[in-house]
């Protein structure tokens, strides 16, 4: 029996909370910094699954919630873009079971292509959002989100950031709860979102959000007061409004200040903030990322100071918060650059990128370890936008470039990324083929390597590494009507790989080249697992 007092990462804390709350289904797609939540839930007995992408994961979780189950869905910030379609309408339908959507932002982009701020999604979709500052809060807010979702019949977003997800701190767990019984109750006007039903549903959503706003305004619910030096808040020369891990940076940077922690960032406890801001002499909003809180305060006519524009970029820390409070806009010292990551020695992707460089290809790239092909010594990637974009972007280039240039365009995509968002790109390719044809290389290392070797439908194993039905990439491509589909081992068939690629570029037509060899790291892990078992 695990002790109830543990040192946990924010991600592990969310998993423990899901277990203790009796979550019946956890679904998601791997993405830094969110990945470990479902891995931990799987290790705790789950049930947890990797879905092909975040949209499907959210839909599966929504279905579970329609069946009155407690469901958890996890993703990184850009994953919420993919899952945004079901999220916005799930807000209309609501669900009797709790649907808690965990989204992990990456301010500073430790491992992401942008630093978008998910708090905007809560406002745009009309979904309540809670934001913890550390692992204990990640635990308690996950459970709180379950209860609120059931009370309001609304999905609830839980926003984490890198430093909440990946920092460890002490968590004291609560009691395990028995979840409500599952079962389906028909509600056609409530869940079939044709316009006539949806018009009513939108009105219901706004009414539910009014209830959520009233909860948010209640002291101790949407806000928590940290009164550094004690005494009445009204005597404080400095008041700080902050959310997430910025609360901890602010409390350390200004121990004498009164800090109003915003626990619920949507609906924002705006009257509680107004009262706080009025009671202190000077009120400063400390938030990572976009000026979400400060803009909302100002729109409500609350006089607050925000952060200067340079602090919109990157993570905050104690030093940067001190600068904001001091109004110091002098250039910040640049930290010395560390050693950048690179493709592992012996990585099977290396063969392909050496070839693409030597053949002077225009490479439309994608998201994964192999994005490192853009760096020396390869310099063999020209674009990287989002999951699956390699195929569409490559096709667009092929359509417009002069023949000689168009024939050099190649799309490069990983196996997990291909299943996530590449299949529709193949449909586009066979449906609207460019005059010069196109070449898609699937770098199949039989794992989701970038995020730490997660399974996906193409590996033939489920989240817990147990056997599952395998989606065979070359069969799928053939079935979709790609005339030339070739599978090549980059370790043993380097000459054949070069010849095939040369021929495909020269002759035109539509090609998918599956370059398949297992990731070195996953091979090592597999061997370790075999030794231990």
């Amino acid at each position: 029996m695990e002790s109830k007092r543990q040192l946990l990462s924010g991600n592990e804390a969310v998993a423990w909370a899901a277990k203790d709350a009796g979550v019946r289904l956890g679904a998601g797609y791997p993405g830094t910094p969110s990945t470990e939540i479902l891995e931990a839930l799987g290790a705790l007995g789950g049930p947890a699954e990797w879905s092909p992408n975040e949209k499907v994961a959210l839909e599966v979780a929504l279905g579970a919630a329609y069946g009155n189950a407690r469901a958890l869905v996890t993703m990184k910030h850009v994953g919420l873009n993919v899952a945004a379609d079901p999220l916005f309408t799930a807000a209309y339908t609501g669900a009797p079971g709790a649907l808690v959507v965990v989204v992990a932002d990456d301010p500073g982009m430790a491992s992401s292509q942008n630093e978008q701020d998910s708090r905007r999604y809560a406002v745009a979709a009309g979904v309540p959002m809670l934001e913890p500052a550390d692992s204990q809060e990640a635990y308690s807010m996950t459970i709180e989100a379950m209860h609120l979702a059931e009370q309001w019949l609304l999905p609830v977003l839980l926003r984490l950031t890198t430093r909440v997800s990946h920092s460890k701190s002490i968590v004291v767990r609560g009691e395990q709860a028995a979840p409500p019984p599952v079962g389906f109750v028909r509600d056609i006007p409530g869940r079939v979102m044709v316009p006539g039903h949806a018009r009513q549903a939108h009105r219901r959503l706004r009414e539910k959000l009014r209830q959520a706003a009233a909860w948010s305004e209640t002291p101790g619910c949407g806000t928590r007061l940290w009164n550094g030096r004690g005494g009445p808040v009204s005597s404080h020369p400095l008041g700080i409004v902050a959310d997430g891990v910025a609360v901890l940076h602010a409390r350390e940077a200004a121990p004498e200040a009164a800090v109003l922690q915003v626990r619920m960032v949507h609906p924002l406890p705006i009257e509680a903030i107004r009262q706080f801001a009025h009671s202190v002499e000077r009120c400063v909003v400390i938030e990572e990322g976009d000026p979400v809180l400060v803009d909302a305060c100002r729109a409500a006519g609350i006089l607050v100071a925000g952060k200067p524009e340079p602090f919109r970029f990157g993570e905050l820390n104690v030093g940067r918060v001190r600068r904001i409070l001091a109004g110091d806009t002098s250039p910040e010292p640049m930290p010395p650059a560390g050693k950048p990551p690179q493709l592992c020695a012996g990585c099977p992707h290396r063969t392909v990128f050496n070839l693409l460089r030597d053949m002077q290809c225009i490479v439309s790239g994608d998201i994964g370890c192999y994005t490192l092909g853009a760096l020396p010594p390869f310099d063999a990637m020209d674009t990287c936008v989002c999951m699956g974009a390699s195929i569409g972007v490559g096709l667009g280039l092929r359509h417009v470039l002069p023949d000689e240039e168009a024939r050099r365009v190649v799309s490069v995509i990983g196996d997990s990324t291909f299943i996530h968002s590449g299949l529709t790109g193949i449909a586009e390719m066979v449906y609207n083929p460019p005059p010069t044809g196109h070449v898609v290389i699937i770098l199949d290392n039989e794992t989701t390597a970038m995020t730490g070797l997660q399974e996906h439908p193409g590996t033939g194993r489920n989240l817990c590494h147990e056997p599952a039905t395998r989606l065979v990439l070359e069969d799928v491509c053939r079935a979709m009507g790609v005339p030339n589909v070739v599978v090549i081992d980059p370790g043993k068939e380097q000459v054949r790989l070069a010849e095939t690629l040369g021929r495909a570029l020269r002759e035109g037509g539509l090609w998918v080249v599956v370059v398949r060899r297992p990731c070195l790291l996953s091979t090592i892990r597999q061997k370790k697992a075999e030794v231990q078992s």
Partner: protein
Amino acid sequence: MKAYNIAIAGLGGQGIITASDILADAAFRAGYDVKKAEVHGMSQRGGSVNTDVRFGREVLSPMVPDGQLDALVLVDETQEPVNRHRLRPDGCLIGPAAVANMALPNPKTLNVALLGLLSAQLPLPIEAWHEAIRHALPEKAHAANLGAFDLGRRHGETANGES
């Protein structure tokens, strides 16, 4: 009570995360409030890896502010220029050179040997360290790592006695 700020730095694959897990767990077992921060992701591919561990009566931010490290443990000396500015002027730098003359039987245990050196500077009982090592590593690695830790600790204590 003094709060302790420690960073462990090196390259992906050198056991930086494991070492910081052991340190944080040892402080946790000794009854302190503890926070540990790290960055995952691209850093797994041989790039710089950095972790912060803070412990004391109450820890707020999980990240150590620049210039406030009490100790910087380098598992790879190439990471010194990247992290030096984070150390207090009187802070303690522990690098692989300190282990060079220890005759470490297994080079894979360098990270844990360096923890042994560090442990001589910290108010954490040896039982907490040993339990944390056993908790973090598979059983077959216990003997080698406990040995490396104790070797490092003895060197650290000797160095303390000399200074």
